[in-house]
């Protein structure tokens, strides 16, 4: 019975959202917006589940002294500190460590933000090692790929226009023509696949949520 209700609910909501795309008559647009808002509300409750899971997972690692358990101590401490600061400082401006900022702001600006930027900057190193490994001339296609990659990399930077002035025009042509054509082909295929998957889920043929 529980399964049937879940499938029926999935069908009704999926069908309703499709209908709402075409029908403008009140109250359909309002209900459609309420469904969007409902997702946000459900997310908020699911976040509680996520935090509980996080605490359980890391507590277990600390208790058993698993590999990397000290990272778990830092993780739980960070969660608790930021949560408490966020809750209790949010209405009190001017009591922070620096000037008129809160401690929460300070930690966000000077700890969280640099950490995020650091992680993102790892991409530069990863792409270097990936490029070194990947662009091998094993066949004609790989050779074409390598040449195109070098031209686009030169066209994307100032020095490329000094070394190889035509690189900008050629790289723009590569991005706007073969690259765009391939992307559109994959996009169309993926969109059809997504629509097919959505129809299967709405009709209950596929039930990945159970």
């Amino acid at each position, binding site marked *: 019975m529980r399964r049937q209700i879940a499938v029926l609910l999935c069908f009704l909501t999926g069908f309703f959202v499709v209908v709402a795309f075409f029908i403008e008559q009140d109250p359909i647009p309002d209900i459609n*917006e309420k469904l*969007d*808002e409902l997702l*946000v509300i459900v997310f908020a409750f699911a976040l509680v589940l996520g935090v509980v899971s996080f605490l359980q997972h890391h507590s277990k690692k600390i208790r058993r002294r698993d590999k990397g358990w000290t990272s778990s101590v830092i993780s739980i401490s960070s969660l608790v500190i930021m949560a408490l600061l966020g809750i209790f400082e949010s209405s009190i401006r001017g009591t922070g460590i620096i000037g008129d900022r809160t401690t929460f702001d300070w930690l*966000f*600006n000077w700890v*969280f*933000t640099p950490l*995020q*930027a650091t*992680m*993102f900057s790892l*991409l*530069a*190193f990863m*792409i*270097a*090692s990936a*490029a*070194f*490994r990947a*662009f*091998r*001339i094993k066949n004609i296609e790989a050779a074409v790929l*390598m040449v195109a*990659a*070098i031209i686009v*990399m*030169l066209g*994307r*930077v*100032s*020095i*490329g*226009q*000094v070394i190889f002035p035509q690189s*900008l025009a050629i790289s*723009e042509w590569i*991005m*706007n023509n073969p*690259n*765009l054509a391939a*992307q*559109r082909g994959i*996009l169309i295929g993926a969109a059809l696949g997504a629509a097919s998957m959505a129809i299967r889920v709405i009709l209950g043929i596929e039930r990945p949520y159970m």
Partner: protein
Amino acid sequence: MKIGGIDKRWVYLLVAIGALIPIIKPLGLPVLSTPAVEALFEKIESLEPGDVIMLSFDYGPSSAPELDPMAESILRHCFQRDISVVVVALFPLGGDNQAKIALNKIVPEFPVVEGEDYVYLGYKDGGLAVLRRMAEDISIVFPQDNRGIPLEDIPLMQRVQNYSDTELSVSLATGIMGEWWAILVNAQFGQPVAVGATAVSAPKYYAYLKAGQMLSLLGGLKGAAEYETLIGEHYPELKERSQIATRGMDVQSIVHLIIIGFIILGNIVYLISRSERTRAGGRLASK
């Protein structure tokens, strides 16, 4: 940790050195602008003093190095031309902060008044639903600005109810948010949209640019550097202040050259080892 016989850490070290040198000693390499970026510049140039644009901060700290220079250049351009800016933040993790950082940096450079020449409406969660609602009435989504003042009491917002009261919407976006502006705000509501995206996301926006669903695309640090160059050419008094992305392009140039060098080196190593294997195989066969 080896690739092609070379320890990966040497690769990382060389990339790190290549990134540091131009920061310490700027190279001053020229930056040429492209039509995709010039389109936004020309659009803002064509606006009259008093016209309004919307600027949306749809990115967080991880994309700040690429998108902050775009935000600063666009704000400088608008304020220089007395174009009013309605600023919003729609990205949950840091959009609000990035908007404040940009405004706090640029506003003191110009004689602009909050509430008249610009307004920051704050952050709102909701993604597509927010974009849809703003087409109807911005005050439904943002009943007050970031200072807590109701929109009806703000002179700028008294003449801006929704997208149709603005000339342009610019989204500085990470991930999927720029696409939302193109497929919803432009395609459904007819609002001219320009997107500033990180370099890794920029390729997917070309389709929208080509289809006319975006007026302009600023891709990555180069897009920001191109816009800074255009600002510098047309407004020399602003040139010195708008150099962050341009200096960053020096770093990108050197790192790109290092990566190209590694690709060529990797192929040389590969070809040498392949010919050695072929020769060894030939010797074995002949025995």
